[in-house]
């Protein structure tokens, strides 16, 4: 038998004075890290199975459990650290690619945390959001070169727009990678708040058609669940060219996660792997993309905006210029910190560029080329809080996409084991025993709370800058200053250094 050279990543500490052996932890752990020893009459734990999802800790009625990074240590080594060594052990044992979930967790710089906001003081008074209305409403879609007015009315109709109450939408998460209850939560929240959620490449489940006017339906390379009713069900259509977490490769949903509902929604056979190819096999050039964009517009009678989602990679500015000229109404850029249900670790952690830099570069280029009005820019790939949103808008975004933050509101604890399908919080799983743990009523309540809280905070920050409408902040680089950034970074971001 081969030796297992790894040791557990986490250790489970059970305070025996507090533990009442109620077995709630044993019943709830889908990884079977806790189990009840009938003979001894106590609950015991197996550290090697723990993934640090904290389900047991949260539910324990006496708070007897603590999960910690395992005490065991390799000899200290700044180069060959624990992660580097264990990854090799794992691959030597299995011969497989390392898989992971959620977004890049490596120690790269977070540019949001190097950007500071302005506040008005002397010459331009700040606005108190409790006394004056501050407009967060945002319209996404192509804007015309100029607005022609005749007799006090628009002479030409505007291209189709999405109306958002706040500049925050839920980014693509497929039904299959997440549970139906999680999808319902996103749909119900988007509907209640007045924003959009995105189907991802899993198609649209029949129970969710009623939230159609708050849905962006995605057309990805596998074309799962794409049929005429689907295209017309949503408020907009998004062509997925790439995703921040795994630029250049396609999606992969293992057959175990393809149950009856996923199978019928994606229109694939039960239990088969759902593999989305890397490219759309009918898009090999920018002209092919333009063809698909217009084919979708024809299919929906030009009533819905068409968005193109791409991963932030090198030369992103040139790519977006091409997409804008190809007829897209919205471009969604996904940075390298973006989350996923499953991706090869090396791709997730080494491919792509930060969204902050990509966004700034694209916004600047489109303005330089005089075509910024043709598209709305949406950015995602780790928007963690309302300050990130404000900074993103100031860098040029019309709106942001959040996904990981939404899942965290629903209960995600970032254990990054989404690809196992054993999510203890009922989010990234299709196991009915686990899916039922996410009550959409509770999830919606929490997610609405998050967005409402962020709205209040955004209004405070805007008011502090003396701005009473989000559109006045869009691309307003003068409201930002950099801190601890190098000259080239400041230049790409198009902002001055703090103090200047």
């Amino acid at each position, binding site marked *: 038998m081969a030796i297992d050279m790894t040791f557990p990543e986490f250790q489970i500490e059970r305070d025996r004075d507090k533990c009442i052996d109620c077995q*709630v932890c044993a019943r709830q752990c889908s990884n079977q890290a806790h189990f009840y020893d009938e003979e001894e009459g106590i609950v015991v734990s197996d550290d090697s199975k723990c993934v640090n999802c904290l389900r047991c800790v949260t539910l324990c009625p006496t708070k007897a459990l603590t999960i910690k990074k395992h005490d065991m240590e390799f000899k200290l080594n700044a180069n060959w650290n624990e992660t580097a060594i264990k990854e090799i052990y794992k691959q030597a044992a299995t011969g497989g690619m390392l898989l992971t979930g959620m977004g890049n967790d490596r120690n790269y710089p977070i540019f949001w945390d190097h950007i500071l906001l302005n506040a008005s003081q002397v010459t331009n008074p700040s606005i108190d959001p409790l006394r004056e209305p501050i407009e967060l409403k945002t319209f996404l879609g192509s804007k015309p070169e100029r607005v022609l007015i005749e007799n006090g009315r628009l002479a030409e109709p505007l291209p189709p727009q999405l109306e958002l109450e706040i500049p925050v939408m839920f980014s693509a998460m497929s039904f299959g990678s997440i549970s139906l209850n999680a999808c319902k939560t996103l749909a119900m929240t988007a509907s209640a708040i007045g924003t959009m959620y995105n189907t991802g490449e899993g198609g649209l489940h029949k129970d969710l058609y009623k939230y159609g006017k708050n849905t962006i339906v995605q057309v990805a390379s596998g074309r799962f669940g794409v049929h005429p009713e689907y295209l017309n069900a949503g408020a907009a259509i998004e062509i997925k060219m790439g995703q921040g977490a795994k630029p250049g490769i396609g999606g992969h949903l293992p057959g175990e996660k393809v149950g009856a509902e996923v199978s019928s929604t994606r229109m694939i056979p039960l239990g088969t792997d759902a593999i989305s190819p890397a490219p759309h096999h009918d898009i090999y050039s920018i002209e092919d993309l333009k063809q698909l964009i217009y084919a979708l517009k024809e299919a929906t009678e030009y009533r819905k905006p068409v968005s193109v989602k791409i991963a932030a990679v090198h030369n992103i500015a040139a790519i977006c210029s091409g997409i804008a000229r190809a007829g897209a109404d919205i471009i969604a850029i996904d940075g390298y910190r973006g989350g996923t249900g499953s991706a090869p670790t090396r791709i997730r952690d080494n491919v792509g560029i930060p969204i902050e830099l990509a966004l700034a570069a694209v916004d600047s280029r489109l303005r330089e080329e005089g075509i910024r009005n043709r598209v709305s820019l949406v950015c995602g790939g780790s928007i963690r809080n309302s300050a990130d949103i404000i900074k993103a808008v100031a860098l040029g975004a019309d709106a942001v996409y959040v996904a990981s933050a939404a899942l965290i509101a629903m209960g995600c604890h970032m254990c990054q084991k989404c690809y196992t399908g054993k999510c203890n919080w009922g989010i990234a799983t299709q196991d009915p025993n686990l899916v*039922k743990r996410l*009550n959409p009523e*509770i999830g919606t309540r929490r997610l609405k709370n998050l967005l409402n809280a962020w709205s209040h905070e955004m209004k405070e920050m805007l008011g502090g800058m003396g701005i009473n409408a989000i559109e006045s902040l869009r691309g307003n680089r003068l409201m930002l200053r950099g801190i601890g950034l190098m000259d080239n970074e400041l230049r790409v971001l198009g902002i001055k250094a703090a103090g200047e």
Partner: protein
Amino acid sequence: MAELKTTIKHKKIMAKEEFCAGCRLCEVHCVLAHSKYRNDIVKAFKKIYPRPLPRIIVEEQKPISFGIQCRHCEDPACVKACITGAMSKDPETGIVTNDENRCIGCWTCMMSCPYGVIVQDVKGGHIASKCDFCIDNGMDPACVKNCPNEALFVVDQE
């Protein structure tokens, strides 16, 4: 013709089986709420032997589970079947309770209850035990309050 007069409120606890996670925290809190150490869960579980029985029954056949307890019926079969008169329905609150001093553990109520929610407390005094709607806890059922997924709720049938 004479009219039947009734002013009894019918509160019931019901379950949403689609959200029960099968964790059984409802059982833990039921035991706690009925123990003498109502505010100390560790003492309630470690100092009392034999451990009191929970009065909620969690049925489970994966992937479905749900908790069920006394429905405090309008026309309670257990009250009619009780040979000692220990089971009674309070005319004010509508709650059906078992007088543990008078119950002699004949189990006839267990045979009458159509929900099968009366349990045999053999060790703890050989009496029939069932949900009392947390009547000593301000009628704020501990199971409903502590369900982490809001799978239990109170219905007021008035």
